[in-house]
């Protein structure tokens, strides 16, 4: 029974290995999730949400920007500089695909559990 499962579909572990590391990292996933629920958010908001230091958040945002998942916009409100981050269309698609794969892993784990029990 276990053999046929392995032949017909990839195991949850194989799915996990195929996860996009750029998205799967906890802090980046938190940033992407927060951005997916709004049009754009500034640096202060993302820092408050994630608790990351300025340097860490900058580095994560730069990685996401270079991956094409996030766009960065620098503006001024009065004399105050504000850095906004927004999810790109590609970022939205990648996040959607990530959640689909995540669901598949969860279903796979559930199936493995039932196999072990039986």
């Amino acid at each position, binding site marked *: 029974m276990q053999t046929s499962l392995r032949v017909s579909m990839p195991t949850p572990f194989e799915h996990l290995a195929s996860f996009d590391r750029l998205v799967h990292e906890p802090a980046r*996933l*938190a940033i992407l999730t927060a951005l997916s629920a*709004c*049009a*754009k958010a*500034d640096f202060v*908001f993302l820092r408050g949400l994630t608790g990351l230091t300025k340097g860490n958040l900058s580095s994560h945002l730069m990685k996401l920007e270079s991956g094409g998942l996030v766009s960065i916009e620098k503006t001024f409100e009065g004399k105050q500089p504000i850095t906004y981050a927004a999810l790109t269309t590609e970022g939205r698609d990648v996040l959607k695909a990530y959640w689909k794969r995540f669901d598949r892993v969860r279903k796979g784990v559930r199936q493995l559990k039932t196999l072990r029990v039986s």
Partner: protein
Amino acid sequence: MMVENRLERIRLLSERFQELQGLRVAVAGVSLAAAMGVYLMVAPVPTNNGALAALLLALAPMVPGVWYANRYYSATFGRQVSNPVARKNKATLVFLLVYFGSGWILNTTFPAIPSGAPTVATVALVSLWVAVRDWPWRGYYVGAPVAVALTFASTASAGGTLDPGKTLAFLFLATGVSLVPIGVLDHLLLVRLLKESRESLARRVN
């Protein structure tokens, strides 16, 4: 499952960030309640039209208060633009048109209904909708319709003993008073969600 819970919290926080800036609502509630309270104490014979004038006076502390609260939130918690702005603006415009249109029809067709009563009813219904939509996180929004219903039940038009001339002032007062704890609880929920989100992420990263 843990990851999902954490991300669900982050999503809720990001989606409702503007609404959870509750001190703005609390300031509006305090202004409304104070204006109505003063009006009921000072006016020799309170009337529904007088309550409407007091409502305009409530705007004097409300506008700068909400402006200050806005500044506090953007400086402390950051800025965020809700998603998607254009559709929300259209929905707000349609809501305002329907609201003022139906208010005008009600005023001309049923003069017995005080002018501000539909406003209070709208606030109560919107609060009920928020409580249902964000249950159990924001269940405390039930407080507003309950306060309005209890006040209405005590008025003469619903078989109570309250003077009909004071109906509107008391309804506004009840709305204002109920908005204060609602706003404060929204603010506390915002702070709590932010703290939990940071802590859960720190646990994941470390």
